[in-house]
């Protein structure tokens, strides 16, 4: 790439609109091209103003709380007094979980519902194929899940935590929360869904603390269970 070509590409670079190969090639050239870097700096400074060109929107009131909760969840495991040694059993049961996903997990232990005016709160137990009494209880408000209560969860191995994911109808996934169960195996996770978000199930994984943003760990296959 010559400098004339590179110069033509600087605006696209500043806008993040280059393909990866072009971007890398341009970066190499810029390393020895101070005039190009100076021109780029001006372009980037302008691009950086673009977020301010928008009409301001307001996030939901709950967003701040969800961010703080998630941040705390990432910190808590270090502060939590550790239980006994990392349970090897976790390593043993997890490989079985892949096979026991949606269908197998749908064993219902109980269902109840009550109605108050137009509002309906309901809950349902799903067996988890981990230990004998491990289960997840999904609470629904107006037929949408609002929380999951877990029981019988083993403590995660050292430097690892549980992560609950929501599985969407469009095959995408998103983190619901990261947590460590109480020493007695119970844990509660709140679920906040987008207005039109269609969730078909949940996934429970064990993730390394230092890589919570990555795709679900392959070391411990996920447990999945349906939303209903």
């Amino acid at each position, binding site marked *: 790439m010559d400098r004339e070509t590179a110069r*033509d*590409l*600087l*605006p*696209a670079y*500043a*806008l*993040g*609109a280059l*393909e990866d190969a072009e*971007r890398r090639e341009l*970066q190499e050239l*810029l390393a020895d091209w101070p005039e190009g*870097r*100076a021109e*780029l*700096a*001006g*372009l*980037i*400074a*302008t*691009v*950086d*103003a*673009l*977020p*301010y*060109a*928008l*009409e*301001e*929107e307001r*996030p*939901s009131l709950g*967003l*701040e709380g*969800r*961010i*703080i909760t*998630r*941040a*705390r969840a*990432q*910190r808590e495991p270090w502060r939590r007094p550790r239980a006994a040694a990392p349970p090897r059993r976790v390593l043993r049961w997890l490989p079985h979980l892949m096979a026991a996903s949606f269908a197998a997990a749908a064993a219902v232990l109980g269902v109840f519902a009550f109605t108050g005016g137009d509002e309906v709160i309901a809950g349902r137990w799903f067996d988890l194929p981990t230990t004998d009494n491990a289960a997840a209880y999904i609470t629904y408000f107006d037929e949408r899940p609002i929380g999951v209560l877990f029981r019988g969860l083993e403590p995660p191995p050292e430097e690892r935590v549980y992560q609950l*994911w929501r599985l969407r109808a469009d095959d*995408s*996934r*998103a*983190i619901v929360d990261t947590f460590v169960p109480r020493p007695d195996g119970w844990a509660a996770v709140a679920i906040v*869904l*987008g*207005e*039109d*978000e269609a969730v078909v199930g949940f996934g429970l994984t064990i993730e390394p603390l230092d*890589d919570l*943003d*990555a*795709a*679900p760990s392959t070391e411990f296959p996920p447990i999945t269970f349906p939303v209903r």
Partner: protein
Amino acid sequence: MADRDGDSHLLERIADGDDDALRELYRRYGRLAFTLAYRITRREDRAEEAVQEAFVRVWRNAGRFDPSRASFATWFSRVVRNLCIDMLRRKDPLERAGALSKIEDWIAYSEPIEPVIVNRLDVRDAFLRLPAEQSRVLEMAYYQGFTHREIAEALAIPEGTVKSRMRLGLQRMRRHLGDGRSS
């Protein structure tokens, strides 16, 4: 300008695990982040997911922020934008490892940046005054995550035209913002 009213101090506190500082940072930049994310994703849930993810990244990486390279608002806007563009490109939103270093790559060869005036009304005015063909390519690139080739294809115009419209649009905005008044 690189340190708006103690952003660096807030980030130091966040690096020490002070969630009150994270809360304060959210109050400063949460709306800006959501506005940008919502414009890109066009969905409230996805926008909030991206904002949440961006703040959690700040929580985990506050110690790595270098205020000599860019203001926090600038750096953070890039994080939010990249997360949203990843979503738009239908990349698995959970494949996020390494995205932070990508952002660092993106600014790696820029000089320390003197930010343009970020008076919201001026910026909006500058953008709205652009000729439609210029604002269109800027919008497609920045808010919709298209590459210059994709834009050329979508608009059925030569790549060279896209590049020159990008340049002219950015130059015109910069002139406008540099003056602090409409040109």
